[in-house]
């Protein structure tokens, strides 16, 4: 499938990556080439084949007890925040 500029802009929006109009053309070419490459998979008959969604075919995700295992580390949690005040992350106004 060949992607047009509008589709690239839609994907960029979904991915929350700002794309300048002049970049969108080049991205459309790149992404279309990658899609053409992966579309080789259409040759493969996958009827009755179950999907493999983990790193090993027989792998089952282990569950742990729903317990708090840490806490009281507010300083550590906020240590890398681009903007933090009074124990909170600071963000632009979300609700008018």
């Amino acid at each position: 499938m060949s992607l047009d500029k509008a589709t690239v802009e839609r994907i960029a929006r979904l991915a929350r990556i700002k794309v300048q109009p002049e970049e969108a053309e080049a991205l459309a070419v790149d992404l279309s080439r990658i899609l053409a490459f992966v579309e080789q998979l259409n040759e493969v008959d996958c009827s009755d084949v179950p999907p493999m969604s983990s790193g090993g075919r027989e792998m089952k995700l282990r569950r742990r007890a729903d317990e708090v295992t840490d806490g009281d580390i507010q300083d550590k949690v906020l240590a890398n925040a681009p903007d933090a005040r009074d124990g909170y992350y600071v963000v632009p106004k979300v609700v008018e």
Partner: protein
Amino acid sequence: MSALTDLTLAGARDGLKAKTFSAAELTEAHVEAVEAARSLNAYITETPELARKQAAESDARIAKGAARPLEGIPLAIKDLFCTDGVKTTAASKILGNFVPPYESTVTAQLRAAGAVSVGKTNLDEFAMGSSNATSAFGAVVNPWKRRGDNRPLVPGGSSGGSAAAVAARTALGATGTDTGGSIRQPAAFCGIVGMKPTYGRCSRWGIVAFASSLDQAGPFARTVRDASILMTHMAGFDPKDSTSVDMPVPDFEAALTGDVRGLRIGIPKEYRIDGMPAEIETLWEQGIAWLKDAGAVPVPISLPHTKYALPCYYIVAPAEASSNLARYDGIRYGLRVPGEAVDDLYQNTRAAGFGTEVRRRVMIGTYVLSAGYYDAYYLKAQKVRTLISRDFEEAYKTVDAILTPTAPSAAFALGEKSDDPITMYLNDVFTVSVNLAGLPGLSLPAGLSADGLPLGLQVIGRPFDEETVFRVAGVLESQAKFTAKPDGAA
């Protein structure tokens, strides 16, 4: 004291034990080597002070007779492993100043075993690449050069800094991660050993995530024995990673018996690809002959879905990446580029913080997961992944391990392949199936190309049978007698 940096890890372990030299001397020699090799750009962050402090602790323990298994061994750590109090960037601008307040399980285990850390190594941004050219901190230079040609070559990727660091004798070993070949391909390009263990063998906790169903940590070293020693201490069950497997970790070094008599080694016909250089084909034949001489039995096998592994990977990996990288939003950590509303902040931050290849993969991943395309791309790829995995299950009914080349070429020059993303992706043609099937794979240096560059052979094993992989690799290593060193080595 250049001799100290030329030791194997096992040799350094013996020397420390016999008190031939101190951990401080061993560390100092490597700290100096790190500085002397700066032109390679193998490290993003050097940690000489930390290394000296850790070495002093090691000497104190050795003096008390309380040495741990890796006591005083200088290692380099891929800058994808979170290290408590030491900057961890994933080679991305978006994490450029990130200082984790915690330590990854794998590096914590290495530290608990007594290892010393000389620094954090460069990589492709978020481990996305096969040449280490996508790093926001600049490309890494391979210490090897073509004979009579001074152009800088790539070290491979994504763990290119780790591979270059070990090849250039700045560390006795290093950690890497491998999602589609990111340990094995740079190991091959730099003439060293690299192992990706079975999925679930090493904890992924504290490793910056790329594609969670494919990512695995593993070691780099200059010999198979050294890699086996590191593997023993990197592996192990971790309740903090839900995909970590709770099974005992063998002493992998003990697997190096040198005896492969009667072992059946699969030779997959689909790995003879069009356009593969004759010298790689020849090296592969040589590897088969070496194993035969040692009493193993080569068996022709078929892995019929091999050609679909790369297209499958380039759906699955970007899809998982787009999901994993959603966390970089400029709110909680990392770069923030302001915007009027919070949505503008996200979009500006991610546009400025991610490099070209990462943006490309996040967008492909977003597309293949988006409404209306999920079944056609993502679900389809997951089904093909099952078929690729079944190919190996079928093969392992008749063979004990598989032998292939590691990469379709030797190291190439910077910029030689980077214009077209697909050409770059083809580097991983022999390694990527192993990640999709979750198997262990190891690359070892087995010969030189006509222009004097190292070439690797790959041994692939059954799930959780790293021991057979090490055993086969040990025999190949003793037959290959690979002793060449890069001119760029300290």
